[in-house]
């Protein structure tokens, strides 16, 4: 199925948000995940199944300033 991840169209196998993170080798502790403009709770990652057309934003921590 086709989804958008950080603004880029991507074909994914389907499954849950957590599975998508795993496939990308991203630890759930490193990102905030937004699905269709709504921030997901960390415990929702394993229970949220992606659907065709979903817009996913993976927001990484950005700590610098100095």
């Amino acid at each position, binding site marked *: 199925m086709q989804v958008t991840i950080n*603004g880029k169209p991507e074909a994914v196998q389907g499954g849950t948000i957590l599975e998508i993170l795993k496939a990308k080798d991203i630890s759930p502790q490193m990102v905030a995940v937004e699905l269709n403009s709504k921030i997901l709770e960390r415990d929702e990652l394993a229970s949220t199944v992606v659907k065709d057309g979903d817009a996913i934003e993976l927001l990484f*921590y950005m700590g610098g300033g100095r």
Partner: protein
Amino acid sequence: MPFIPDSEEQVARYSRHILLPEVGGKGQKKIGLAKVLIVGAGGLGSPAALYLAAAGVGTIGLIDGDVVDLSNLQRQVIHQTADIGRPKVESAKARILAINPGVAVDTYYTRLTAENALDIIGRYDIVLDGVDNFPAKFLINDACFFARKALVHGGILRFDGRVFTILPGKSACYRCVFKQPPPPGLVASCQEAGVIGALAGVIGTIQATEVLKLILDRGRLLTDRLLDYDARLTRFREIKIARNPKCPLCGEHPDITQLTEHEPEVCAVKTA
């Protein structure tokens, strides 16, 4: 109320502002009455302080507990080689006054803590986040929420930058997105990762522009949307952020009801 210039010097100095319909004499007066706190006189704080001083912000507070180090000069453009070893707030103050002697500069040669944050932030109208670590970013977000002060958040890392404006209680806050700091060592901050120097200029000046818009009450603020800048691709992207009802700070059932500090980071991440 017409703008009554204090002197011809001021009219000349701010003429390019006064010419703007969004600013004018009235707006320039507002800028002169504004009090802005810049937390961190480093990569983001440097360009922000330079432009806000040049713009005529009447009172600028600077808080930073560090001294200028040689490795800062690649991006912290308010400091100069001769300033090495000098407290950053002193070095930045001298440079601000050289640009615009009309600015009142308050310096706090210390770190922002849960103990001093509300007192210091309470003296200003707007806060600009230019710190380099997560506990401080969360502390600033929380303190601005409790003090109900507008906050312009910024972050830089490697080739990526981010800006986000927060009107506490009205727009999404930092914790609406990130509930808490990442576990120590998992995510690099600028202390241990590289950063392209000019990126600090891009992000810091966008933050300064947001501050001026807040003062002037003009334009559309960067609230409820994050601006991400990818310098590698020279691409800006906007991500819509809605207020999170489950936010631990500004949500419907907050767990954070008073100011506390997260554990300081251990710099465990190796330089990539």
